[in-house]
């Protein structure tokens, strides 16, 4: 009697150490005494549940006896008992969180097995929680997700009863598959993937039948979403708000493609899923939309969306059998394989076997011809051809081993081994047509389409046999387009004030921006937009207005130039526009000013911030220096800006000062000008001198670069390119002989071939070589 009292005393009073077996015993007592859940003891139970999870994890990590006690007393059954009662939010959430913590943190296999034994967990899974409460739903879903993470061939039998074909974890999960909450849907997918991944024969067999309905629903959901997206694409205008909505829809759809791709990587259901995908989605919906309409009732997509989906399938899914059957049908079959179609029935769609219509449809390789026709549609615009290009690009990118079947269709693929493949002449012809359409007078080719065409062409010729006829053919048409664009630009060159800025901007964009096709794919889905209000960058839309036309032409010119050079294996020698790279001065350099014109200036950024500097200019740069205290005649550069970007305005109220703004170059992230300051000179004459020098320097610098562009475009220019002789030498030790750059006199016209060593002499300064050089002030 006494012993019993004494023995149980440990669990009657609250032990001090919260991490001990004693404490667990006490908590078990608490639960036992509070079997009935009532309002007053709710708090006690919640805290007890929480503490239990904490002790168990502590026990798992530190003291094995804790777990033994937990199992001995069947404490999970307490959990069930509590659950059976009408628990309400807080207790339910606490229960689920406790279970979550248990299953996630347990490290010992044996502890896990003990927890899973007795089927309690399955009872918890099947318990009908109040899923209308989003918090309970979220905790429940993360609980089953945690469980699914613990699945492996050893633990699967705790969940899956092979004899009765009972698998509550799966069946309960599937009930939530179209929940409104995104996170819940994601969790459901995770659980399904985790289950499928378990390599256990009995389970795999079971899954084939158990998942049939779910997979069918999944594909039908895909069909519904694609039709919905297609309707949106047909009806929506190309503006930013619509593209946001479009992106959401496309992302949801591509998520499903990715999910299908992940599902296909498992052996058991891959076959049934891929046959579902082909028989319900690819054939009746995609392929049906690529040929002429045969049935009035059938739901068809626009070829735009159909090609887009096809390209996404090829980009996302790499399951070889599916891709092979897809490509086989796409490249070689005719319309006779289409034996079903989707029709609209009330609010949803249903699959119907299509009556085999007359024999007029038996055109060979109907889908392939559809693709070629789509490619060839550049007469109007490039809306459709862009997606045809995407499909070809995606074929070449597909990660499944597809080189054989592509070789059979005469499409060279860089994964091909052995014999060299020829390239389907019709495809090449279509691609060249796309390139050439850029040169047409009323061309509606967007630069991005040309860019994609160039990418596809490069990939195609990469592995093609190298008698170079193909390369040369492409290079020929590229150079034709390049010439046409060149003449367009040459006319614009003399008219556009800002041609130099445009050219350098576009070149910078081209070299730094790489085409991200997985992002671009959906942006082009809406009909081509022309106005800048659509919020699209210029290369993804049609140009509007003269300036944009010029920019577009520059882009087209640069793309074709690059294509030509790649085809001929030439190196780029002219771009980027550079003059005397080695003579560029940087901030912090120490330069010799012995022979330079110096102007003392006070640079005032604001009322308070003033700096005393000397202003120097060379052919391209505006330089501010601070005299070096150690070496006489030398100075340290504190600011460098390009003269071509400099704007100078006089100050009406103060004749001694100038406003100088140096715009930042393209590609520099920081917005706003590089320098914006007031230059205050000693007197008004020096101010005038500085203004003259800067204005002239700006003109000269611009003319130099314009001359380079003229060289590039191959047009003679009437612009007189001038230059000051080089006056600054940097990097020499003090007192050493000054490095003289030879600037050979030229005929003064900017039609010379290259940049650095043949810059023409400034006629004014060369006429007066020594006297006017030094103005020490």
């Amino acid at each position, binding site marked *: 009697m006494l012993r019993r009292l004494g023995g149980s005393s440990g669990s009657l009073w609250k032990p001090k150490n919260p*991490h001990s077996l004693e404490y667990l015993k006490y908590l078990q007592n608490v639960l036992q005494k509070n079997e009935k859940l009532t309002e007053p003891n709710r708090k006690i139970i919640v805290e007890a549940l929480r503490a239990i999870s904490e002790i168990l*994890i502590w026990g798992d990590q530190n003291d094995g006896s804790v777990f033994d006690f937990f199992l001995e007393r069947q404490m999970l059954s307490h959990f069930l008992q509590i659950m059976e009662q009408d628990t309400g939010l807080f207790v339910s959430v606490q229960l689920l969180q406790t279970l979550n*913590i248990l299953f996630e943190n347990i490290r010992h296999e044996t502890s896990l097995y003990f927890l899973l034994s007795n089927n309690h967990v399955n009872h918890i899974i099947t318990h009908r929680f109040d899923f209308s409460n989003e918090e309970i739903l*979220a905790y429940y879903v993360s609980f089953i997700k945690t469980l699914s*993470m613990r699945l492996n061939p050893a633990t699967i039998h705790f969940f899956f009863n092979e004899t009765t074909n009972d698998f509550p974890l799966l069946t309960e999960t599937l009930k939530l598959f179209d929940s409104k909450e995104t996170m819940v849907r994601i969790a459901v997918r995770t659980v399904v993937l985790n289950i499928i991944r378990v390599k256990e024969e009995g389970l795999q067999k079971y899954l084939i039948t158990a998942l049939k309905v779910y997979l069918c629903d999944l594909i039908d959901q895909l069909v519904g979403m694609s039709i919905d997206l297609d309707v949106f694409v047909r009806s929506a205008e190309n503006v930013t708000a619509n593209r946001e909505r479009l992106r959401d829809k496309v992302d949801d759809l591509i998520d499903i493609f990715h999910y299908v791709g992940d599902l296909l990587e498992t052996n058991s259901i891959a076959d049934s899923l891929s046959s579902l995908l082909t028989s319900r989605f690819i054939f009746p919906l995609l392929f049906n939309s690529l040929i002429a309409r045969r049935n009035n009732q059938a739901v068809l997509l626009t070829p735009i969306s159909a090609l887009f989906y096809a390209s996404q399938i090829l980009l996302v899914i790499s399951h070889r059998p599916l891709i092979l059957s897809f490509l086989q049908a796409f490249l070689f079959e005719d319309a006779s394989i289409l034996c079903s179609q989707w029709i609209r029935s009330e609010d949803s769609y249903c699959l119907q076997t299509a009556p085999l219509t007359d024999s007029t449809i038996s055109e060979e390789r109907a889908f392939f011809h559809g693709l070629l026709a789509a490619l060839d549609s550049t007469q109007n615009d490039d809306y459709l051809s862009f997606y045809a290009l995407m499909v070809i690009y995606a074929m070449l990118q597909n990660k499944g081993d597809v080189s054989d079947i592509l070789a059979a269709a005469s499409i060279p693929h860089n994964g091909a081994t052995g014999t060299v493949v020829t390239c389907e002449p019709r495809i090449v012809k279509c691609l060249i047509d796309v390139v050439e359409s850029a040169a047409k007078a009323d061309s509606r080719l967007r630069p991005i389409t040309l860019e994609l065409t160039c990418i596809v062409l490069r990939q195609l010729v990469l592995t093609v046999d190298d008698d170079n006829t193909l390369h040369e053919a492409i290079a020929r048409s590229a150079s034709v387009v390049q010439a046409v664009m060149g003449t367009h630009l040459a006319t614009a060159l003399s008219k556009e004030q800002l041609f130099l800025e445009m050219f350098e901007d576009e070149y910078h964009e081209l070299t730094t921006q790489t085409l991200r096709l997985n992002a671009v794919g959906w942006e082009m889905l809406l009909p081509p937009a022309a106005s800048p209000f659509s919020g699209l960058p210029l290369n993804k839309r049609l140009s509007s207005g003269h300036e944009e036309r010029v920019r577009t032409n520059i882009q087209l010119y640069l793309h074709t130039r690059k294509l030509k050079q790649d085809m001929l294996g030439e190196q780029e020698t002219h771009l980027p526009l550079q003059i005397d790279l080695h003579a560029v001065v940087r901030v912090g350099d120490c330069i010799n000013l012995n022979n330079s014109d110096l102007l003392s200036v006070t640079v005032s950024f604001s009322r308070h911030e003033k700096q005393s500097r000397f202003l120097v200019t060379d052919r391209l740069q505006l330089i501010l220096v601070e005299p070096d205290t150690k070496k006489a005649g030398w100075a340290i550069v504190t600011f460098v800006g390009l003269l071509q970007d400099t704007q100078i305005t006089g100050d009406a109220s103060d004749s001694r000062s100038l406003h100088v703004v140096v715009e930042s170059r393209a590609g520099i992230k920081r917005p706003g000008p590089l320098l914006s300051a007031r230059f205050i000179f000693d007197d008004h004459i020096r101010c005038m001198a500085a203004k003259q020098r800067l204005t002239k320097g700006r003109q000269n610098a611009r003319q130099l670069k314009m001359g380079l562009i003229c060289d590039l475009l191959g047009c003679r220019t009437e612009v007189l390119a001038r230059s000051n002789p080089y006056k600054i030498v940097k990097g020499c030790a003090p007192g050493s002989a000054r490095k003289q750059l030879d600037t050979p006199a030229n005929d003064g016209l900017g039609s010379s071939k290259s940049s650095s060593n043949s810059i023409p002499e400034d006629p004014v300064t060369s006429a007066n070589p020594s006297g006017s050089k030094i103005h020490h002030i």
Partner: protein
Amino acid sequence: MSYAYLFKYIIIGDTGVGKSCLLLQFTDKRFQPVHDLTIGVEFGARMITIDGKQIKLQIWDTAGQESFRSITRSYYRGAAGALLCYDVTRRDTFNHLSSWLEDARQHSNSNMVIMLIGNKSDLEARREVKREEGEAFAREHGLVFMETSAKTAANVEEAFIDTAKEIYRKIQEGVFDINNEANGIKLGPQHSPSSPNSPAGGAGLGGSGASKMLPHKALYQALCRMGDKMVYPLLPAFARPAWNHAAGPKTVFFWAPTIKWALVGAGIADLARPAEKLSLGQNMALAATGSIWARYCLVITPVNYYLCSVNCFVFLTGFTQLLRIAHLRYTNPDWDKEKTQ
């Protein structure tokens, strides 16, 4: 528990950097960090307050799902905020940050707020990544940076709450489209604070169809709201439950009987009139309606005691007048003749 907004977060980073511990530390304060216990969760929710607004945070850990492209992709898209974690005692976890960030930027909504977290800052002795390096990385990529410790709970609150503040700021600026739940932000169930369960009054108070509301409904709701604000606080405690009663002042069931009190008033005023001038028919009608309606009020839904009381009084006044008439005729047998004279 109601909230104004719900933000969904994800936690990303290499395994073993303490993501789940961080999450548990934030969502459940009752778990005290102890030296011999490592404990974490993959999901948690907690309510916080920003600018006086209740905001619920739902945090999802993506651990263990990296092998499925479809899953990580969807997670990124569904979140409004992300905590990108590394372990200051393990250089490799820091080196992997850029690939995590690239993934996140590629898949997520462009407005997603990303916070860089250097975890386990308590293990100063074993530190491999300097604080300055984390700061530099954050500056370079435009992230907010913080060093935390799930063990000592240092900065854990701040990490989650600062992220929420940043999201909230973006909402205020109108950058986030809050009506699109795919962005990881959800609007809470709106309801006026004092009418949680009034079926009749609450019918139009959902607030969801506000854009299409008819003018009379809008007026009604404005009145209700005004009453909630100005009248309700003045009510004594015992009267408060009546405010939102199904037959309370927000419904016609209250105002109809209130007007009917005028009949009672008129009836009482009639007491001053000489009995011979009272109409027998009118008072019979009053007494009859009063009695019939008083009974009727007790059988309808909602049972309306207020209407019952007013009808009782109508009956009583009518009946009193009838008694007076009867008394007059009884004491004055020739009342009929007087009238004809």
